[in-house]
């Protein structure tokens, strides 16, 4: 119930007040505001493409990379990207705090049907909810 209220607030306001979350040098110490993200495409543009790139091809750094989503066979089963988004993987942060089940379902649906991927079985919040960790990760300082 609480999540639904939060979501409607998110969509109603152009900008949210600062979350108040402090970060170490944090330097900003306060996280910036969240863009309203109604669709999976919105989530991809405002969250994912910073690393996975607008064309979904990822990038190669120093002996490490951001994996490509384009032509990625691991997207065949939606449970895998849902798990990774929820819990993070290696250097990739968890997004269970930041994204709602609806948003995760949306963006998983988006990446599985774009960048040359064609996994058309629908992804719904009902697929996401069971994967929400019982004790969600929370950053500490």
């Amino acid at each position: 119930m609480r999540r639904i209220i939060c979501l409607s607030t998110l969509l109603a306001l152009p900008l949210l007040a600062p979350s108040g979350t402090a970060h170490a040098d944090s330097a900003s110490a306060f996280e910036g505001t969240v863009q309203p993200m109604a669709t999976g495409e919105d989530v991809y543009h405002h969250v994912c493409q910073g690393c996975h790139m607008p064309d979904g091809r990822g990038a190669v750094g120093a002996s490490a990379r951001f994996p490509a989503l384009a032509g990625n066979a691991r997207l065949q089963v939606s449970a895998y990207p849902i798990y990774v988004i929820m819990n993070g993987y290696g250097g990739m942060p968890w997004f269970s705090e930041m994204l709602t089940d609806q948003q995760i379902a949306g963006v998983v649906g988006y990446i599985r049907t774009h960048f040359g991927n064609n996994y058309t079985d629908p992804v719904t919040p009902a697929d996401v909810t069971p994967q929400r960790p019982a004790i969600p990760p929370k950053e500490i300082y």
Partner: protein
Amino acid sequence: MTDSHPPKTPTRRQLLTRIGTLAGSAALYQAMTTMGHAQGTDFTAPPVLSGARRGTRVLVLGAGLAGMLSAYELRKAGYAVQVLEFQGRSGGRNISLRGGDTVTELGGAVQKVGFASGNYINPGPWRIPYHHQGLLHYCREFGVELEPFVELNHNSWLHSSTAFDGKPVRYREFSSDFTGFTTELLGKAIDQHKLDDVVDADEREHLRTAMEQWGGLDPDLTYRKGDTSSQRRGYTRPQGGGIDGAPIPSDPFARRDVLRSGLWTWMAFHERLEMQTTMFQPVGGMDMIGKGFNRQVHDLITLNCKVTSIQQDEHGVRVMYDDMNHGGVARQAQAEYCVCTIPLSILSQMDVQVSAPLKAAIMAVPYASSVKMGMEFRRRFWEEDDQIYGGISFTDQPISQISYPSHGYFSRGPAVLLGGYMFGPAAFDFAGMTPQARLEQALAQGEVLHPGTYRKEFSNGVSLAWSRVPWALGCCSMWSEQARKTHYKTLCTMDNRIVLAGEHASYVGCWQEGAILSALDAVTQLHKRAQGAS
């Protein structure tokens, strides 16, 4: 007790015991800190390592602050040290950008910095708390000149899109009103005997006096327009001289607006230990620290080496790397021990021969996204028009803040400010934009804080999205409570011949102090291990 003898000065222990008894442990800690017993971080003095067995080699991977400090202390102890660095520069995330520099990010965008000569932005670390004594110790030892960094400025702007008609208000106006109204409410609660069951008469009297004087209230415990409140929030017409010198007091904001605005968040921000005055910055740019460290160990560093794998056995450590100075030819470096300062975002994707628990720890720490904007303006309009000298204006827009330079006050000509500093959602968003789009967003949002001048005076700008930095893939480590419990000690413990160091191996994550303290612990462990080996 007679007074025939002059009172004896109590010993330090007697004094501390007395303070502890009278005022409790918080005051005791306070007093001990003042007297030099406790520090903000746990640095007291650098380790004194000596007597390394002749010819014992140590490979240090990464020439950021942790790597360079490890090399410095280990050479001093007698080890034969070699440092391999991926970039064509040392310093790691300790970096400043100046005119003529080029920023190439993952995804291919290239920015050429167009700042005027002498101007810079610190796109990584930019301020040093006074209690980061480890870093400050080495700044002093390596001759890095420091100057004050202005964190809190009462004349800066606070802005909420949903309060005060979306217009920025001065920090001093807001903080005066917030403190005034809250103390007034507490004062009234006392006078109306609402607190009698929890506060006795004597304490009530003290509290009442404190509220009046601390809150800037009139004797009737009301916060209202007048000299008392204007002495804090400022006058509508400032105090002048001569015949018409009389000031006109200003009107406080409506209490409801003050409380609803949420802007008190930014008052609380400066109260955090890490943000308290005095803060410092190096004169001339944060990279003066990296350069100071580099002066000590530059002869040990080989630049442009891309480490590809780290192996170890009972005899030593073997590191494979691509020598980018020679067309990327694969080479091998060997040593008895290794200090690895490669960020976990990179290390977690490399072939590293360590125990399964350490591998799991390396995989368990994600990296935060952060974006910083360095923007040059034709003149210091924030000083000339707004009387803002250093400090930070805060906003609930994605850029989150504008920080004005803490140096070069009153100078003419172009100057650079921090036009946005984002973590979390806004950082992901900005990282995904083109550099041009980031600047456009920063200009539009900055214009709200400085209407009419921000865009007009803008000259050029650069952004650094840390998640798009090829050798970092993120800004700094993000520890969850679970990961700390499960993996932190393992991550920091020497694994046979390899020990990790960096801000990620500390409780001062994302600060340079974390890199320093972690390196000191790593070299101490390594030395112990080497001394024990026969």
